[in-house]
């Protein structure tokens, strides 16, 4: 049943898939952090021309399955003449999806900054750029770093969906090996192990972040 020599022989290929998975995770997360902040700021803008579209897009993205979004981007964008590599589309799709959740986390962080901080900044005549980059976000972000870390782990565990749009991440690699050798036990076990190890390591990382960023003062 279980063949160790087969297991060891496929590990390098699975490891290559793992590298793609990590690569896609980190880039998607970076996209999500940036777009999520844009969503969060746009949604609280007093200008309806900004807040309404932001709300509509986030509701739409959150209300539809990630897999459908990935298929849509992968199969429909080329019809509009926009051709991108599958990995690029996957990173953008995952990033956009997670941006809508991360926007909520930013919102919670921003709302937790006391009103007095806004008023003090106004009394000192700080312009919006400095208000946000030097006063509000430096206080809003440290407390939400653990929550962001948890989202990163969740995103990591959703990367196998990218197999559906032909990205050669770990799951797709494993399936191809299985198809080739008519043996799926070892490749899928390897995938599970890689995910488990990576999740355990990143959970430990999040625990560490929680200890480090428990409060604004501790974050300095």
């Amino acid at each position: 049943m279980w063949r160790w020599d087969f297991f060891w022989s496929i590990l390098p290929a699975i490891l290559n898939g793992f590298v793609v998975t990590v690569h896609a995770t980190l880039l998607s997360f970076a996209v999500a952090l940036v777009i999520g902040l844009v969503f969060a700021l746009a949604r609280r803008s007093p200008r309806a021309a900004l807040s309404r579209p932001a709300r509509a897009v986030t509701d739409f993205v959150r209300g539809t399955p990630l897999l459908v979004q990935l298929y849509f981007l992968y199969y429909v964008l080329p019809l509009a003449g926009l051709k991108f590599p599958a990995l690029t589309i996957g990173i953008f799709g995952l990033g956009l999806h997670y941006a809508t959740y991360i926007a909520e986390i930013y919102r919670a962080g921003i709302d937790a900054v006391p009103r007095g901080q806004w008023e003090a900044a106004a009394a000192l005549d700080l312009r919006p750029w400095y208000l946000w980059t030097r006063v509000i976000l430096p206080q809003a972000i440290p407390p939400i770093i653990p929550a962001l870390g948890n989202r990163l782990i969740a995103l990591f565990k959703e990367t196998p969906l990218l197999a559906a749009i032909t990205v050669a991440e770990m799951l797709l690699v494993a399936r191809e090996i299985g198809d080739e050798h008519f043996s799926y036990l070892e490749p899928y076990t390897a995938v599970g192990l890689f995910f488990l190890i990576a999740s355990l390591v990143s959970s430990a990382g999040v625990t560490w972040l929680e200890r480090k960023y428990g409060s604004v003062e501790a974050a300095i």
Partner: protein
Amino acid sequence: MEASKPPSDPAIRMTGIKKSFKGTEVLRGVDLVVPAGRKVTFIGPSGSGKSTLLRILMTLERPDGGAVEIGGEPVWTVRGGGGERPASAEHLHRIRRKVGMVFQHFHLFPHMTALGNVSAAPRMALGLSRADAEDRGRRLLDRVGLADKAGAYPAKLSGGQKQRVAIARALAMDPEIMLFDEVTSALDPELVGEAVNVLLELADEGRMTMLVVTHQMNFAQAIADEVHFLDDGRIIESGSPDRIFREPSEERTKKFLDSVLAYR
């Protein structure tokens, strides 16, 4: 005061100011003129509208009715083109720059050192270089007696020290008008003195227009050229501290002073 303005323009002119919060009228038509350089205190029961008055002057609140002029310029409208139009954001920034405010709960930036707090606005709002802003910050911290706390974060400072940093932070913008909103109310009694002394020294220098809301009657008396008693959203009585505290003419002023001075 700008050179183009006649010297007769008061620092502050408020006419018929009204403000409600969720249907509760907090200010019911306040008229107030404060000549440049004058020290004015506002006393009165909690909820009488004193703090709201200062918050309107800082443009943290917009009045529902009435007009505010600072240095002869309307705050919420701009004159010109044969009429008045709503003030631009730029206009509000220009007005705001003339006014500084110190809050009851300090509102220091917790992620910056004392020096960072004091030098932040000169760098970000006035465009000073880091060196110049920190130079100014150090001088101001020295002035409030906290030169040795420049590198300390607010969490490590006492209430009185925090409030003195907050005063230095407001002074760093070199405002023409300073607003002090119950700046001693959140302090332990033994720490009130240090903040009060800083304010009395500031007042003695004379140049700045100062508006002080306080519940410390002896402080109100010591710092003021003029005292206004507010109750229920109106200025009930105004006059020199000597007259208001010794022989108030309004019944409500008497009652208020009797109750707060009774157990002094």
